[in-house]
């Protein structure tokens, strides 16, 4: 690694590719239904004729831009553009509803840039030593990691923990629908041909998050988001001041995102939730997470963008994709004839280091472009009359779901699931646990079945599930995540009672 690689990354072509990638990624990621994976996948063919390092820079820039772009729809439409932005809806949408959507978008941009830079720095400095930690994770650890993710979202989302857990189990069950990957048994379709293809995650995500918002929007004549009168100035400085005040939250969330990004399969959704949970756990007095707290948006967005750099560590060093977009990028590299693995940093180090510097540049470029696009995205969405916003978003949900695998069944499932999600949400069953259950279902099932087979064969089923140190640590965190909010709630109620008694 030397300045030659930095100079290679700073060529006019690479700068232009980084800029184009960030802008394209941000725009695609902001459209509900177009995930970061899809943004990267649809633009991969452009890179086949490029130099490998330039191709990687473009794909990395699209990826990082799309992860940030997912925050727009999460904040302004309560619909995470990507699963990584699920926790952004918790505080981003309440902020937008009270008229602080522009501030939330600005904060999301600062946090995304900071998180992205931390992730890229980790990729540059820590790739080989950290990748060995990921190697220690076996199938059981991935199972418990999935359960941990579900327990976190159950305790964090609105409604109560029990309803969150029931929703998570419902999501896990939905992930089983269709042809089983392991044995090709057709499961839970009840004879319906529509269900044979299974429930497509992004389509379900669009339905569960977007359709309930549309159903609520049409029911009443009130505006979708509060609009401040008098043409207020853009709140870049205010956002920067808030981000600076919470710099420790930014740093902690970025580190969490980087570390979780390194774990293959975990990805930005788990990273965002863990970072959000930590921010909530260490909240200052007066901070109200879930009701429009800027620190919530900051934690999630810093963590999910940090997974970009973190996810590249196992992708490039081990050839194991850290996140789904990494899998697409890995495929693109194989087409280029670049073999990833431990020797890549030595034999083809030039490609890797030029790419890492390119990722730094793309992330820095995200600051001006993100703020600019964010400003117009906010102003556009906030001023569009409901009469046109509802059918336009409805149309995008249909076309976005259809585009994933050209299936009308997926669109039908999306609408039905969205309507069911609306009914459930009205009775305190939040959408997030169901969505996370669907996302983590395949990972959890693979870990569960593998552990079951090994445990059954060795006659030590309990030891397989509960006997490994890393598993035990994750189980302890899972129990803590479920019990801690209950203890905290009781403590708060006791405090209120004591204060009320003292006032009497």
């Amino acid at each position, binding site marked *: 690694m030397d300045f030659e690689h930095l100079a290679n990354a700073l060529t006019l072509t690479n700068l232009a590719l980084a800029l184009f990638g960030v802008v394209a990624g941000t725009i695609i990621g902001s459209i509900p239904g177009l995930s970061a994976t899809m943004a990267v996948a649809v633009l991969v063919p452009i890179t086949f004729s490029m130099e490998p390092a330039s191709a990687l820079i473009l794909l990395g820039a699209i990826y990082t831009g799309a992860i940030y772009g997912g925050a727009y729809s999460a904040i302004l439409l309560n619909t995470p553009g990507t699963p990584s932005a699920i926790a952004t809806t918790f505080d981003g949408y309440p902020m937008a509803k009270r008229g602080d959507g522009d501030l939330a978008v600005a904060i999301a941009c600062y946090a995304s840039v900071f998180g992205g830079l931390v992730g890229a720095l980790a990729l540059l400095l820590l790739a080989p030593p950290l990748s060995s930690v990921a190697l220690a994770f076996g199938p059981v650890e991935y199972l418990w990691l999935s359960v941990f993710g579900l327990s976190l979202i159950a305790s964090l989302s609105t409604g109560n923990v029990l309803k969150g857990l029931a929703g998570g189990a419902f999501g896990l069950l939905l992930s089983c629908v269709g042809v*089983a990957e392991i044995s090709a048994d057709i499961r839970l379709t009840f004879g319906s041909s529509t269900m044979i293809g299974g429930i497509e995650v992004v389509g379900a995500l669009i339905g569960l998050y977007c359709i309930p918002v549309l159903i609520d929007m049409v029911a009443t004549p009130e505006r979708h988001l509060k609009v401040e009168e008098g043409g207020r100035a853009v709140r870049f400085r205010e956002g920067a001041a808030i981000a600076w005040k919470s710099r420790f939250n930014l740093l902690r969330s970025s580190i969490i995102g980087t570390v979780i990004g390194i774990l293959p399969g975990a990805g930005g959704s788990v990273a965002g939730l863990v970072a959000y949970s930590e921010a909530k756990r260490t909240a200052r007095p007066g901070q109200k997470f879930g009701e429009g707290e800027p620190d919530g948006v900051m934690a999630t967005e810093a963590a999910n963008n940090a997974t970009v750099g973190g996810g590249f560590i196992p992708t490039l060093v081990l050839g194991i994709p850290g996140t789904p977009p990494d899998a697409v990028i890995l495929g693109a590299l194989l087409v280029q004839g670049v073999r990833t693995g431990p020797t890549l940093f030595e034999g083809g180090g030039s490609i890797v280091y030029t790419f890492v510097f390119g990722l730094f540049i793309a992330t820095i470029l995200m600051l001006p472009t993100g703020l600019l696009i964010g400003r117009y995205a906010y102003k556009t969405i906030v001023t569009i009359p409901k009469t*046109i916003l*509802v059918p336009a978003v409805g149309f995008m949900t249909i076309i976005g779901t259809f585009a994933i695998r050209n299936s009308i069944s997926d669109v039908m499932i999306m609408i039905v699931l969205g309507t069911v999600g609306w009914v459930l949400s*009205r009775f305190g069953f939040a959408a997030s646990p169901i969505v996370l259950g669907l996302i983590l279902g395949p990972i959890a099932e693979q870990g569960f079945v593998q552990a079951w087979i090994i445990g059954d064969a060795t006659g030590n089923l309990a030891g397989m599930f509960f006997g490994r140190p890393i598993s035990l640590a994750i189980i302890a965190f899972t129990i803590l995540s479920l019990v801690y909010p209950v203890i905290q709630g009781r403590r708060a109620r006791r405090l209120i009672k004591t204060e009320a008694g003292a006032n009497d």
Partner: protein
Amino acid sequence: MTDTSSKSAPKDIGTLLIASLFIGLGLVTLQDVSTYSDTDSVVFPTTVAYALIGCSAMVILASWLRPNPDNGFGGGDWWRRILLVASMIAGCLVMPLAGFLPATAIAFAGGLIAARHEGWDLKSAFVFALSGIFIMAAFYALFRYPLGVPLP
């Protein structure tokens, strides 16, 4: 004589019904897994079904003891909600016969009518219809050409 009915909070029927449906879904799953040929595809859904039944039973118990009065469908026009969802489903059903754009036009029109609370006149109908055609054409072109999605 004290009025005991005024003291007890009304039951959260919706939550009780949803949790009961979840239990039913868990039982149906347990019935469905008995038809699978391979044990590997049985163990996970079985475990999840038991988890769903257990959690839902606890939800019923918790909701019975401490019902949440805030739960419910709330206000708003039901015909608009139904029109929105029905037009989207109708669009899906028609899509294989009519093609993508005419089918989604049904969903778009349904959403437009459902979302318009200010009433209609000739001018507004013309403006919104034109805007709708432009938005649909723009997104169709974006997906069909640069993104290469084979739309029907």
